[in-house]
């Protein structure tokens, strides 16, 4: 179950000049585009964060999870629950979203990581189906309350010190999303490059050997599974903030499939890759959908091509090309 190109995540991140350029352009970007594209850019960051959650589980942990959508959905749910029921402000709601995702991840991870490698995917699909079925049936309203499919009735605000920023401005929405995503990236970098992350890559590359040198494989995989869910939960909360709308469909395992597509096309062995893949997907989809409604066929084909010829993803390909040319 090992991934062919076990490139070190740190190596891809070390292009600091490139990273700085990226950061500057992301900060400047909203001043160059009209309002609706600011929202679009925020959406790319949000779905990228969602894809990152999958990329960490899969790229570092070697676990092909189809349950990430559940954690995204739980993020939406936690956000709604905190704002409507607990009357918390935006910060509290985001914290609630993350807590909700993690609380869901603990039993899911417990069941799924108990299963052997090949069961893992099946178990995550089935848990997603279970959660979605329970929520969709309408018979079990007492479990989730009215906090699943909702359009927000107010404009959210972010209190910060003495002032407060309103999401009625697209700029606030974009910069708030960017700040949260940047924070999440730092957190992700810390996880991936911690001794824990390294141990996990050892497990991914050779489970038997890792076990022989004394690593508790099942516990490591469980911990990584749980550690990747706050990203999906945060993405769910940010989606609720920017779009002011949440949907039961986000729980469906086909949304997890979306994370797979985004992350694999971009590349799962770096933290930038999933965002790159998401940007590529969403911009291409925006243009393609004008001409061809079922543009997803094209992404299916692209996925096959990437898997066959560039298993490190498009971003990995770019990095390989530039690093290669620099060495010449």
């Amino acid at each position, binding site marked *: *179950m090992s991934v062919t190109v076990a490139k070190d995540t740190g190596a891809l991140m070390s292009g600091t000049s490139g990273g700085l350029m990226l950061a500057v352009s992301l900060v400047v970007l909203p001043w160059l585009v009209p309002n609706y594209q600011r929202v679009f850019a925020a959406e790319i960051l949000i779905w990228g964060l969602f894809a990152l959650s999958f990329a960490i589980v899969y790229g570092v942990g070697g676990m092909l999870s189809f349950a990430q959508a559940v954690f995204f959905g739980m993020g939406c749910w936690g956000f709604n629950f905190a704002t409507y029921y607990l009357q918390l402000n935006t910060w509290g709601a985001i914290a609630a979203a993350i807590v909700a995702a993690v609380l869901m991840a603990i039993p899911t991870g417990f069941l799924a990581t108990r299963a052997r490698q090949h069961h893992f995917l099946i178990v995550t699909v089935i848990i997603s189906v279970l959660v979605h079925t329970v929520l*969709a049936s309408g018979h079990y309203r007492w479990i989730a309350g009215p906090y699943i499919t909702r359009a927000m009735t107010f404009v959210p605000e972010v209190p910060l010190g003495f002032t407060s920023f309103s999401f009625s401005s697209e700029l606030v929405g974009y910069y708030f999303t960017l700040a949260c995503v940047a924070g999440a990236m730092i957190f992700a970098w810390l996880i991936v490059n911690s001794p824990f992350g390294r141990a996990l890559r050892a497990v991914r590359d050779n489970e038997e050997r890792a076990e022989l040198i004394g690593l508790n494989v099942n516990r490591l995989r469980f911990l990584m599974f749980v550690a990747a869910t706050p990203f999906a939960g945060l993405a769910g909360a940010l989606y609720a903030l920017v779009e002011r709308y949440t949907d039961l469909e986000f729980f469906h395992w086909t949304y997890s499939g979306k994370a797979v597509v985004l992350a694999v096309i971009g590349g799962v062995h770096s933290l930038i890759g999933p965002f790159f893949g998401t940007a590529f997907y969403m911009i291409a989809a925006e243009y393609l959908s004008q001409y061809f409604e*079922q543009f997803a066929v094209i992404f299916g084909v692209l996925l096959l091509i990437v898997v066959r010829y560039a298993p490190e993803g498009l971003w990995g390909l770019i990095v390989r090309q530039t690093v290669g040319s620099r060495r010449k």
Partner: protein
Amino acid sequence: MAMELMLILAMNGLVFGLIVALIALGLSIIFGLLDIINVAHGDFFMVGTVLAWVIVTATGNYWLAFLIVPLLGLLLGAVIERGIFRPIEESAALSIVAAFGLSLILQEGVRATFGATPKRILDPIGLTVPFLNLQYEVYRLFAAGIAILAIVGFFLFLHRTKFGTWMRAVRQDRDMAIAMGVPANRVFVVTFALGTALAMLGGVVAAPITSVEFRLGLDVLPLCFIAVIVGGLGNLPGTAAAAVLLAVMEGIITSFAAPTTARIVSLLLMSVVLLLRPQGIFARTAR
């Protein structure tokens, strides 16, 4: 009356369970030999129903679909194994991603050509038999019969023919089988083709008792997964038995509770099996 309703629903469950068993067998054999969890397998079933619809509307003859669609399935399966999965056979994780890409292509491709609105095929037999005090559709009995025939045929092929013996040999010990001269590559192609054909045959059988649409595979795949987990991954008779038992159980529960409750019960049952017997409940009889 309640008793009769329960029997009818259990009967419907049995018929549907046999069809699911057909699909799950293909999933399981592909997994057992090629190490691929084929998330596009439900979509093969969906393509089967769509092709059945196309053939019925084009020729007006439903029975033609029984001949043509499984053959197309064999062809499609062989092409997919050769073209998509063979080049990346060393990585199980990549093959799952590729299967998801394939699933996108099949679903969206069908949506682009066939349309998004669900369609129906009329009951091709159109007769009913008295069953207790109610009328039961003959077609459903016929569908069950076809599914049983296909399942029995599949096991006969596996146990009575040379090729079937090769398949079992490769599944047990791939390297040893190759060393003994089994043409493993040919076995892989045939296995994938057979699995695809079984799913598409399941589609033809199920087409008149379900709606025909591009999302059909999304509902069937989890059912196959449950059957595979409860029956034990790679355990073929266990998988078939689990598919039938679960469907009958869901049918019985549906007679006094909502269908979603039935589905939730089987999902919970699967979780319990996973916790207590990760190797499946029929593990003793495996291999």
